[in-house]
């Protein structure tokens, strides 16, 4: 069966520091991968999606970036965090049209 992992689970970072969140999927090949952000009490905002290694599409221009160095690995990064980057970050994978989500990372920028 397929599983999706995210780490870290929680992160507290100062403004201006770098960020790296990792997502890995097991049990499937060539999945579509997605990064979402959820602000407190809000819906999900799609940040990036990838249909293959090295193929990244950005939905919202901001100081975040994403990379897919391996088929089942998706990384969300920032060189300098802003206060507005605080939120809950969810990674998801899909093989056809259903998306399955990881446990998420709660990021607090102080």
């Amino acid at each position, binding site marked *: 069966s397929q599983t999706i992992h995210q780490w870290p689970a929680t992160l507290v970072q100062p403004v201006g520091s770098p960020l790296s969140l990792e997502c890995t999927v097991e049990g499937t090949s060539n999945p579509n991968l997605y990064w979402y952000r959820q602000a407190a009490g*809000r819906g999900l905002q799609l940040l990036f999606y990838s249909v293959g290694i090295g193929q990244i599409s950005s939905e919202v221009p901001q100081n975040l970036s994403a990379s897919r160095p391996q088929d089942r690995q998706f990384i969300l990064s920032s060189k300098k965090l802003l206060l507005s980057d605080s939120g809950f970050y969810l990674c998801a994978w899909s093989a056809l049209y259903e998306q399955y989500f*990881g446990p998420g990372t709660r990021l607090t920028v102080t």
Partner: protein
Amino acid sequence: AQTVTQSQPEMSVQEAETVTLSCTYDTSESDYYLFWYKQPPSRQMILVIRQEAYKQQNATENRFSVNFQKAAKSFSLKISDSQLGDAAMYFCASYNFGNEKLTFGTGTRLTIIP
């Protein structure tokens, strides 16, 4: 562009009763899928139920069922025999085959009253 609207920010229901959560959507696609996701306090998104737009029959999954009205672009979720574990945020979402993206509504917070 697709839009999904959930007009009920909060709902509550007595345990063992039935509750219906509303969702409307707008799309120019002729083929699409609709979903309901549940987000409990753990915040992990869990797929509850799926409806293919080409199917007239409403989807059901145990105590969860949908009322899909394609012409009205309405997709409501009915939860029967509500249980305490059903307390969560519920998100309606539509899938666009053209760009392989999910569009989410803003969610409905469901409270179960013991």
